[in-house]
């Protein structure tokens, strides 16, 4: 196997093509509405595919994955506003800090299994949310507002929105490639083994505590980067939005809808969910039914089709396994 063998895999090129489509489509007619819809889809795809590293690969349900996104947003926005740091540098810094915090935290809470871990992730998110709500340097409960002048760092507000969009699409592509790279690596194999049977994996020599904490930490990096970009774009950040538990539970729905443990699945689930959500919000009859429909979909999937969309595709088109993973 030479080092560039991934260039011969069709799936690699599918990821690149999707990212290219995200870049080209809104540019085509300078379509700002489409760009706004796609940036949301990109955020969902980033959250879902990184969450999938924990749920789908390692078999640990993280209900509070939004804490990475929110904390990344806060750290990034703080660096941009108070230190005038370039947004992409701030985003990277936010990613590194959150990822390091997650590694330390992960070594602690990943000693818990199953339900206990799921409860702890909710607790972590709520603890951070209530801490930030009381933390005056970050504006407490009212949050941080970003003045228009901050966008001069990216050459004015209009240009900044496009730049952030392209950066977000880049992060999305990296998320998918990361999922792919991990799945085909020794690390990924270890995680999948942990997901199947943790004790057996440990006996066979997988360093389970380290691998789990690493997975937790890796799954924190890109959401934190995306959080910084997203909240810089929104021009304000508040604890209520940044650590919105329902957002991260919706991410769980996306992962399940697309198919946990696959690479394309969470992305498909996230995209479908975003489209559905957009449609429901604009439709007159169903505008309040977003959660009801999300719940109903989740119940049907969990009960009758735990494999999600990818489970269906793989069952009825077995050949698709070769290029769609």
């Amino acid at each position: 196997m030479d080092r560039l063998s991934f260039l011969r895999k069709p799936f690699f090129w599918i990821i690149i093509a999707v990212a290219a489509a995200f870049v080209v489509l809104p540019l085509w007619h300078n379509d700002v509405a489409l760009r706004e819809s796609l940036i949301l889809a990109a955020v969902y795809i980033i959250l879902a595919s990184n969450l999938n590293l924990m749920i789908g690969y390692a078999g640990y349900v993280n209900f509070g994955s939004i804490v990475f996104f929110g904390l990344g947003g806060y750290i990034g926005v703080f660096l941009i506003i108070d230190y005038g740091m370039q947004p992409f540098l701030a985003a990277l810094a936010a990613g590194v800090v959150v990822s390091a915090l997650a590694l330390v935290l992960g070594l602690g809470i990943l000693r818990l299994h199953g339900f206990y871990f799921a409860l702890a992730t909710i607790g972590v998110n709520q603890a951070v949310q209530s801490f930030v709500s009381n933390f005056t340097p970050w504006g407490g409960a009212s949050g941080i507002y970003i003045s228009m002048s901050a966008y001069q760092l990216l050459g004015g507000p209009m240009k900044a929105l496009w730049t952030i969009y392209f950066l977000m699409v880049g992060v999305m592509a990296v998320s998918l490639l990361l999922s792919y790279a991990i799945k085909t690596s020794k690390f990924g194999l270890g995680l999948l083994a942990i997901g199947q049977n943790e004790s057996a994996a440990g006996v066979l020599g997988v360093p389970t505590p380290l691998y789990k904490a690493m997975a937790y930490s890796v799954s924190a990096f890109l959401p934190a980067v995306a959080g910084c970009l997203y909240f810089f774009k929104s021009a304000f950040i508040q604890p209520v939005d940044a650590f919105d538990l329902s957002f991260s539970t919706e991410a769980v729905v996306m992962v399940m809808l697309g198919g946990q443990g696959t690479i394309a699945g969470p992305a498909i689930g996230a995209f479908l969910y975003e489209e559905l959500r957009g449609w429901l919000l604009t439709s007159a009859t169903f505008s309040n039914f977003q959660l009801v429909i999300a719940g109903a979909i989740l119940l049907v999937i969990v009960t009758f089709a735990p494999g999600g969309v990818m489970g269906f595709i793989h069952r009825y088109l077995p050949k698709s396994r070769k290029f769609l993973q």
Partner: protein
Amino acid sequence: MLGILASIADGLLIGSVYGMAAMGLTLIWGVMNVINLTHGAMIVAGMFAMYLISDWLGISPYAVVAPVAVIGFGAGVLIYWLSVHRMMGRPPLMSLLSTFAVNLVLIGLGTDVWGTELFNVQVSLPGLSFAGYTFPGTHLMAAALTGVITVLLFLFMQKTRAGKAIRAVAGNREAAELVGIPTTRVLALAFGLGVALACVSGALIATMFPFTVLSGGAYQLKSFVVTVLGGLGNPAGALLGGVALGLLEGLATPFMPVSWTSVIEFVVFVIVLIAFPRGLFNFTFRRS
């Protein structure tokens, strides 16, 4: 000093109600190893059931506690058949997700019907004054009713055939099945009881504090904290955990802004979960 004691005593009264809610959560976990994520939604359902029924019939909210329990039991059995029954014997993720799905549907419907307005149950109960401090009547009444319901629950679990069957299934489902206990029905019964406890405690909380459709999330988290303090699957521990949480809140209130208490609660929660995953008050001996 007396002010602090009064604050602690009030915290204990409220904490006992949190304890009852957590007993519902922990009962379900103990019997079938399922974390009921509809818990918060059912607490809110109890709040609204009490509000609507007492408003509609024009009677005292406390007269509605029993009907709310019955409604909660029915709803619990329904939720069991809808979302939990098929998840038995499947990975824990599945029952978490299926009860969470029902929770989303309930919250969505609730928001559609009632919006996110603040509701208030009107109760006029005289408070009890003691050395210059007045304990609200609603808090005393809620704690008293919690005591009564807890005693009834323990009698039910210890003395009746159904209660013994629940304990048998919690101990060993296969063995219970072998000696002729209809385990599926017992599981539905236990789930119904757990949800009924959530509804009743929700109803009692509604007499003390205003509420919205979305209040459930906060109380569900409190139940998690309490359950973890008491040890998952241990009802007596849950009650003690509730009282401990009330103590913590009562103790913290005079010393710091109210908004900081939740920081402390969740930090305690995560630390206890990591350091004592079997709880602080786990006296019961369970075969590992």
